[in-house]
């Protein structure tokens, strides 16, 4: 039986660098038998790197791993499994055409006489384990026929079948329905009683408070602190998760809103898994104002932005920009109507990294006659234009013939922003425009957005950062579950916003959800 006075697992001073990027900086983490310890943090905070180190996928540059008081070296997932570490990945590692029992024993198959697979024993194992932990599953069901929740149970059962005493759950609720989450919480409680040590990775504050005994917050690869659930609130955790050592205050005058430029009406958009992501959203952004969409990540932000930018076709509703209906008409129509879009992910979307800066700066407008005419690229014009933009936006570390990949993140973002603003848009969508940037670059981006607002552009800011939202926005629309929960002024308290983000909202606030100008 596990000794509950000693941690089942300890990570001491784990450091992992990727080139110059420190993904984990001397991180300590431990979990006791019969405990759920949550690992909380933003995108890129280093949660998955830490768990990859634990599971033998990465070798740490420094630090040690201690299992049951013994220092160990984990050089592969096989070693991790042997040490009793089980990992339930967010994307299930199951073979869809095989049965539950077959998947369960995959890699550790019970063998009967003559080396044949003993499926009967496998089936019995499923029964034993599911009885013991109350995880009801049919051993003969085919994986592709069962619900996502059940698939997750199979993943958990598989870890238990391999005698995992330390169970790592990687964003386990991301794919589950509310009912399934409820059931998962029950399962975790039973596992706890049985003495299993559970690491629960999440970025959802409310869930962490619901299941965890202790909560460790990572930010930018560093451990910010570990707190017990008792006494922790969503607000206190949010501060730990997004808080900055340097608080930025952007100087900004009162907005002078003009006519509406963007009107979104009853928009419904599905995500890549064909699930409702935007659920009847309506909003208006006027020229000369910054409207911020605030909410917990994964509540429809991505799909809303993609729909407006023309990258995703909505299921229903309308998107009107400057009087033109661009619903489902694609990027070219959106661009022609005056939509510019600072992409959330500058590497995946915002830039072609092996392109030169001149080529990158032309991506939005390469069809215009000053860059290409009659199918011919006017390379000289393209470079001249780039020279001007690089100077204007103070891009450092490269000239117009340097490759985008050679710039720092902040300068790359300046290139992406320069290109979007240079297209002289009516509506500028800024999706996490400061993600991964240092303080100086953040300040530059913020100032620039306010300047553009004052020039009369409509700006739709989508951000996960309280500080950014509150310092930039003229109006804040809080979304949750693909719907606008309410409109708030920029001086709304963190508590108010936090409540709305988790779907608890006073009835009075919803009345102005559409955000229509008075």
């Amino acid at each position, binding site marked *: 039986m596990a000794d509950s006075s000693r941690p089942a697992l300890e990570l001491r001073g784990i450091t992992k660098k990727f080139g110059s990027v420190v993904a984990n900086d001397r991180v300590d983490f431990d979990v006791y038998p019969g405990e759920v310890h949550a690992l909380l943090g933003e995108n890129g905070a280093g949660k998955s790197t830490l768990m990859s180190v634990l599971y033998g996928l990465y070798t740490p540059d420094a630090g040690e791993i201690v299992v049951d008081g013994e220092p160990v070296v984990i050089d592969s997932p096989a070693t991790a499994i042997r040490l009793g570490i089980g990992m339930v990945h967010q994307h299930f590692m199951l073979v869809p055409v095989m049965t539950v029992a077959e998947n369960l024993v995959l890699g550790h198959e019970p063998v009967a006489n003559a080396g044949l697979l003993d499926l009967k024993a496998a089936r019995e194992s499923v029964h034993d384990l599911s009885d013991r932990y109350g995880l009801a599953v049919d051993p003969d069901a085919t994986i592709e026929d069962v619900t996502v929740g059940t698939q997750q149970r199979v993943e958990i059962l598989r870890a238990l079948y391999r005698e995992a005493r330390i169970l790592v759950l990687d*964003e386990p609720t991301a794919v589950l329905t509310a009912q399934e989450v409820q059931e998962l919480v029950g399962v975790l409680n039973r596992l706890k009683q049985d003495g299993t040590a559970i690491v629960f990775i999440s970025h959802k504050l409310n869930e962490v408070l619901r299941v965890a005994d202790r909560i460790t917050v990572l930010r930018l690869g560093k451990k910010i602190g570990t707190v017990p659930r008792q006494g922790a609130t969503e607000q206190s955790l949010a501060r730990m998760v997004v808080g900055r050592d340097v608080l930025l205050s952007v100087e900004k005058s009162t907005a002078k809103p003009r006519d509406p430029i963007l009107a979104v009406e009853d928009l419904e958009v599905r995500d890549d898994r064909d699930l409702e992501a935007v659920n009847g959203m309506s909003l208006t952004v006027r020229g000369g104002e910054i409207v911020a969409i605030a909410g917990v990540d994964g509540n429809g932000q991505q799909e809303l932005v993609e729909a407006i930018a023309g990258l995703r076709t909505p299921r229903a509703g309308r998107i009107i920009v400057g009087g033109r209906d661009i619903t489902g008409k694609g990027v070219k129509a959106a661009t022609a109507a005056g939509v510019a879009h600072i992409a959330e992910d500058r590497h995946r979307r915002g830039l072609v*990294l092996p392109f030169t800066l001149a080529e990158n700066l032309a991506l939005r407008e390469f069809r215009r006659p000053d860059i290409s005419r009659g199918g011919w690229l006017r390379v000289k014009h393209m470079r001249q234009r780039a020279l001007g933009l690089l100077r204007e936006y103070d891009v450092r570390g490269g000239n117009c013939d340097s490759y985008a990949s050679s710039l720092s993140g902040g300068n790359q973002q300046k290139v992406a922003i320069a290109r979007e603003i240079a297209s002289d848009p009516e509506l500028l969508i800024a999706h996490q425009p400061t993600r991964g940037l240092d303080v100086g670059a953040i300040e530059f981006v913020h100032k620039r957005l306010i300047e553009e607002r004052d020039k009369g552009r409509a700006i739709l800011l989508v951000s996960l950062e309280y500080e950014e939202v509150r310092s930039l926005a003229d109006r804040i629309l809080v979304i949750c579950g693909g719907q606008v929960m309410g409109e708030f002024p920029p001086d709304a308290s963190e508590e108010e916003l936090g409540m709305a983000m988790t779907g608890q909202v006073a009835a009075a606030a919803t009345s102005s959800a559409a955000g229509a100008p008075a």
Partner: protein
Amino acid sequence: MSTLEEETKAEALAEEEATGASLTTPARLTAYARGAGGVLVPILTTLIAFVVGGLVVLLTGHNPFSTYKAIFEGTGLQWIFPWVTGASRTTAAYNLQQTLITTTPLILVGLAVAFAFRAGLFNIGGQGQFTVGGIAAVWVGSSFAGMSPVLHITFAIVAAGLAGAAWAGIAGILKATLGVNEVISTIMLNWIAIWGGVYLFGLGGPLQDPHQKSVPVSSTVVSSAKLPVFWGNAALQGLHIGLFIALAGVVVFWVILSRTRLGYEVRATGLNPDAASYAGINVAKNYFLAMAIAGTFAGVAAAMDILGWKFNLFTNDIQGSTVGFLGIAVALLGRNTAVGVVFAALLFGGLETGTSDRFLDPSVFDPNLASNLTWMIQGLIVLLVSTDLIALKILRSGRGVRVIFKRRAKREEATA
């Protein structure tokens, strides 16, 4: 979007950024082709292949140096040296003409593979596109007797190019509309082209030469469709002007990619399809266009052979031809760049000619063995080129090792 997936992606990017690479395979190769490794690695690769080939020659009891010297002389490349005079110069000139005749279609099929690759597509279908191009060229070239030569040649080349474009375009459309993997579809199309050709020119086939009922061959290209020979004796298979057409193709390749909007879109699509669609570029359309253009190069390549020196098409030739497949090796070794493809094609063309039984001195090395040697060297080059990302990794980790040593040394200094 799920957080962890994003996070992993972000961290992977951080890692890639730190090591100077990027997302897609073409992106990675492009970033890589830019460094010194761009020229260095293909040359090293070739040298290693020749060294290994030399070891094999040694095992067979021959002298690798004299063998390679004989192969080199077989290519006729010594013609460029001014001190080669007299009869040996005449022989060299003849051999070099043959080398360049072989090189001509290799340049064009190399461009076919390289162009698709720049759009992020792996065109394994060079052989099929080459085959349909050859069928079109031989049909047009053997029909329409009495046309003016300029018109007839142009007509035949255009027909071959269009046939290749259509053939590759099928794979392009399947990719663009249904997402069918172009590797699979182009391989399948190769077989359809090859067996289609065998049917057309086979005994009793609809396009079989009516004058030789018992030979599975096409009709012969008429004189008005034959490419003029500008170096050497036309009767002795001198060098035809197809070489210049191939070099013009190289220029076209470069101009399209570097100087046109289409090329800009194709490159953006190949390097980062997400960013391309974000910029409003129709990725599917570019997949189709890139394949069609690639197929045009391969089709024209076949026209060079048919109109330049073959003049007809035996079913054996259709089944035995490997020119289209060699295009993959040419593109790989040439790094999918215009100039690289020319040199790679010359290397493979030279090897083919230099080891053929017509040009290799049998007293030095048995040409039958030598052509096997050629295959081996070609295979080694392809293998090494395809794995040179591994070589790069080793280079990098070597750097990493040095850093660790430095760090360790520093630490020891500190503790001392």
